[in-house]
């Protein structure tokens, strides 16, 4: 596969693209590598087992760690007997608060640019217990089996303190206004309650979503070693730079003394950040003077790594007879802890999906004694769209309107909160294309109208939405070799999304190189950039960094080209990339290849590094992706079992860079959304705050038989205000899916389930 050699030279993206003066010229490039259906470059490594994950790195003299965790939610360790464990075969160290090195708390998410901690609690520094499942001892042994066995010999007693482990109990203890990135999660426009009470048509209901736990295919693991005061961590993380900085804070060493490597991540979804296990393994390694591998068991992930918190959401919408919304109220409560700040921002969709005469949006938090909750695929939007989009469906029923028509009726012209224009919004087109392809017109407006034997059949629809983000900190290094190879280095992440493949396509296209000549190097905190694989923003963040680095590279190449080159005297904006070289844009015959430039300059290579401009585009436009999710279910009239039989996602996410990896991302999100709709639920025992189903046999996610063929279509309309015209697609698939299923279940059965998951007992 090579770049499109017949194409004209591709100009550099303008430096000031975030201000909208001129879009990224790659957006207009139609027949090159961008948009091509390429298989993942890391695919063969993974299917042959050649890719080495964090728990597969072997270090000389390595020992294995096992964690012992608390069984009470709050209180103190009153008795701790580690003698038997210490004397067990193969044991090298038993670390508890008594002998752990002194550590600073890990800075928690959003409290500093590179903070990566799940919470800011002390890590094994005292006898205090803050949640049920908190690590209280680390055993290191020569084998994993020896460590696990010794861990089972530790005897511990507790003095329990009163704890808040019930959601109702927590609500009674006090609600707090939520904020996110320092911004209050609260919006009011006019008097929504008054508009609501005056309106002829309205719905006003409470929706509940349970806790969810992270279940990436690869459980959390790290293999690490100290060399003097330098720490190397082979981790599986979505934030190498953040993890390195945060670990340095905990151990009070320099950021550059910590190197975090994470070339492969077996699924992240928001859970692969810095939790206690990496800190404890590093502390124990220091104490024992041995490299350590820590691999969390599946149960260990539930005890040590936070998940999605529970929400209780009120949605009230009122409308005139023509369907126009006069009020949109979306308020509610989420559970959090006193030691983190990751509220589920469930009002984000309601801020921009609909126009309405008035708004009242607010998230409140309550504090519980539990493991800190964290991000999980589309935090906020996943559960927020469930409540909002069920309410819209309910209102459509009241109005006797088709739910698609009602949504189109309330499509906003500009951002309802900020008044800013949308950068690119084609939800209506997505709805129309989806409705036609899915056969939406075949849906009966009345519930319970279709039946096949015992099975009641229904169709539902809902809007999907996720914001475009680009966080500051993107930077990249491009190294061009005299043989014509290019290497792009950035501290970014490949967790199975296709990042390495897609960014190779983008870089090859920009540089006018065959894709085989471009390598993307990532997953190493020593590389440039502070890029988190979160918020569906990595594509834009890397894209912006490559734009900046290419400008620097071209400037340097023109300098090296000198006066003997056909390019002599040209400035970066005069030239474009063509055929593994540069040419003058309006005089394409003035061309020189990269190889020629470098060889004349007697250079083996040229290497430049540059930082992406600040994300000013976000201040000028309201930037969001959308989708229309269509679902058909069959509900068994005898047993209440729900089976999803058809699903279609119709997306408006800007330009699609690689249809193959994109479709997989969308489908993966939708499958996770089917789980959210029908089965996922952490059983958090409110008597003592203990998670009772920490295993994949009891915590249900969809299995193959639960997943129908999922049809994916997209508008492919580029966003003129983003790099490559693309917006991130990692999270949007899970949004809207829960409501589409719930609305289909209602259409099938006439039963409105407002409390996830929709298990069979709720439908009997």
């Amino acid at each position, binding site marked *: 596969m090579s770049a499109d050699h017949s194409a004209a030279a591709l100009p550099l993206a303008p430096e000031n693209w975030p201000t909208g003066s001129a879009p990224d010229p790659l957006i207009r490039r139609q027949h090159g590598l961008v948009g091509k259906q390429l298989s993942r470059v890391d695919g063969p490594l993974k299917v042959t087992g050649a890719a080495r994950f964090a728990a597969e790195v072997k270090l000389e003299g390595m020992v294995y760690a096992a964690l012992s965790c608390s069984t009470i939610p709050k209180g103190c360790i009153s008795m701790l007997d580690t003698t038997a464990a210490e004397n067990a075969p193969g044991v090298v160290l038993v670390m508890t608060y008594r002998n752990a090195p002194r550590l600073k708390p890990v800075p928690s998410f959003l409290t500093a640019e590179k903070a990566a901690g799940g919470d800011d609690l002390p890590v094994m520094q005292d006898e205090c217990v803050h949640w049920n499942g908190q690590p209280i001892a680390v055993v290191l042994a020569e084998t994993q089996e020896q460590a696990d066995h010794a861990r089972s010999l530790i005897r511990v007693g507790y003095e329990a303190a009163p704890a808040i482990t019930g959601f109702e109990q927590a609500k009674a203890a006090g609600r707090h206004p939520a904020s996110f990135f320092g911004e209050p999660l609260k919006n009011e426009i006019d008097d929504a309650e008054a508009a609501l009470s005056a309106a002829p048509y309205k719905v006003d209901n409470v929706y509940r979503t349970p806790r969810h736990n992270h279940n990436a295919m690869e459980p959390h693991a790290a293999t690490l070693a100290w060399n003097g005061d330098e720490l190397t961590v082979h981790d599986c993380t979505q934030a190498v730079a953040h993890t390195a900085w945060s670990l340095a804070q905990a151990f009070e060493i320099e950021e550059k003394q910590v190197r975090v490597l994470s070339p492969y991540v077996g699924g992240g979804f928001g859970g692969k950040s810095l939790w206690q296990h990496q800190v404890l393994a590093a502390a124990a390694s220091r104490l024992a003077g041995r490299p350590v591998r820590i691999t969390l068991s599946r149960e260990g992930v539930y005890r040590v790594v936070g998940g999605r918190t529970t929400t209780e959401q009120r949605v009230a919408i009122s409308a005139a007879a023509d369907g126009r919304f006069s009020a949109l109220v979306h308020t509610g409560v989420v559970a959090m802890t006193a030691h983190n700040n990751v509220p589920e921002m469930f009002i984000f969709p309601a801020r921009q999906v609909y126009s309405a005469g008035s708004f009242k949006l607010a998230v409140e938090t309550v504090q519980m004694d539990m493991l800190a909750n964290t991000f999980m695929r589309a935090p906020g939007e996943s559960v927020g769209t469930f409540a909002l989009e069920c309410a819209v469906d309910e209102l459509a029923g009241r109005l006797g309107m088709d739910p698609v028509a009602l949504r189109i009726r309330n499509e906003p012209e500009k951002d309802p909160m900020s008044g800013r224009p949308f950068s690119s919004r084609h939800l209506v087109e997505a709805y129309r294309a989806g409705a036609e392809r899915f056969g939406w017109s075949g849906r009966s407006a009345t519930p319970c109208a279709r039946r096949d034997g015992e099975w009641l059949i229904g169709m539902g629809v809902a809007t999907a939405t996720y914001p475009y983000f680009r966080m500051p900190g993107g930077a990249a290094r491009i190294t061009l070799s005299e043989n014509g190879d290019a290497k792009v280095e950035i501290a970014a992440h490949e967790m199975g999304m296709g990042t390495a493949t897609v960014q190779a396509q983008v870089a090859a296209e920009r540089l006018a190189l065959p894709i085989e000549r471009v390598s993307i190097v990532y997953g190493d905190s020593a590389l440039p950039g502070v890029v988190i694989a979160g918020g569906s923003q990595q594509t834009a963040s890397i894209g912006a960094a490559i734009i900046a680095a290419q400008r620097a590279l071209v400037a340097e190449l023109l300098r090296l080209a000198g006066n003997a080159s056909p390019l002599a005297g040209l400035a970066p904006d005069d030239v474009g990339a063509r055929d593994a070289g540069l040419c003058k844009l309006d005089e394409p015959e003035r061309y020189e290849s990269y190889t020629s430039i470098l060889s004349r300059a007697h250079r083996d290579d040229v290497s430049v590094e540059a930082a992406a401009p600040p994300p000013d585009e976000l201040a000028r436009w309201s930037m969001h992706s959308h989708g229309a999710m269509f679902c058909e279910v069959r509900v068994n009239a005898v047993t209440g079992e729900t089976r999803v039989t058809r699903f279609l996602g119709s997306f408006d996410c800007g330009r699609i860079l690689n249809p193959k990896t994109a479709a997989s991302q969308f489908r993966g999100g939708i499958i996770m959304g089917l789980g959210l709709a029908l089965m996922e639920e952490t059983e958090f025992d409110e*008597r003592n705050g203990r998670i009772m189903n920490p295993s994949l046999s009891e915590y*249900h996610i969809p299995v193959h038989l639960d997943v129908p063929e999922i049809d994916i279509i997209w508008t492919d309309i580029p966003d003129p205000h983003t790099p490559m015209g693309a917006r991130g697609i990692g999270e949007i698939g899970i949004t809207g899916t829960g409501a589409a299923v719930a609305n289909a279940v209602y259409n099938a059965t006439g039963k409105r389930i407002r409390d996830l998951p929709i298990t069979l007992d709720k439908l009997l």
Partner: protein
Amino acid sequence: MTPFTYARATNAADAIRLAGDTGARYLGGGTNLVDLMRETIERPSRLVDVTGLSNAIEVRADGGLVIGAAARNKAVATHRAVRTRYPILSRAIVAGASAQIRNMATVGGNILQRTRCAYFYDHAGARCNKREPGQGCDAIDGFNRMHAILGASPACVATHPSDMCVALCALDALVHLEGRNGERTLPLTELHRLPGDRPDVETMLEPGELITAIEVPALPFATRSRYRKVRDRASYAFAVVSVAAALKLEGDRVKDVRLALGGVAHKPWRAWKAETALRGQPATEPAFRAAAEAELADAKPLRDNGFKIGLARRTIIAVLDELTGANT
């Protein structure tokens, strides 16, 4: 996992000798036992591997079957005689676990698998009378959506998780046992115990006693049989409720019937009361309903599982309805 020794038996007598007096467990496919050992819930001093014992599936002259206890679940489910004469058994096995687990799991091990009650499994954090007699039960007032509605006790509300055993109970299967005191045979319906005040004692097996085979007597009308499993996802989930039934009609009346329930009790539940209520009755929905209600009259709901009573009733009726309409 606690350290243990391992020995592989060549025949039943060898296995019984190797197991010795105390602390040994027989190892089949290990799909449940090894999990429990990892959790330190099971801490055998020795494992005696009995997968080398008989795994034969013999078809007797009268049409009955004798299945060696080491037969893999998959081998039984796919055996031609099982599929044609006892479709209920084949379907029950295939409804359980995953293909990988069925490839490993043995018939003997399936029968002796232990409950999946979350509080039983949480060795570190929960109380359980089955694990530690007298400790108390955290399931009674905890998450008990999957727990028993029939035959439970104040000491234990756990269920037996097997699908296969529900079908075998309906089929009047006999369990062949061999122990230090010789051989004996027990109906499968009498092998498992109700919890009473000793939920830790789950079967009538004597110490060291080994299941060597399962005998399935001839039952010609078992060709008209169904296993229906109600579950929270389409595969790889334990039964919320399951129903195994075989029906023999004479005209439009019930001549004979076999009915058993899964997911409702500490043991696979043979629905004797419903069978008695059905024999001689018209094969109609009111009779099926009356029979189901007779069986479930003593059902007691817990905090989360009250829906199971209605669900069991509806599923029994639906299965019998379906069998009445069946052509076989």
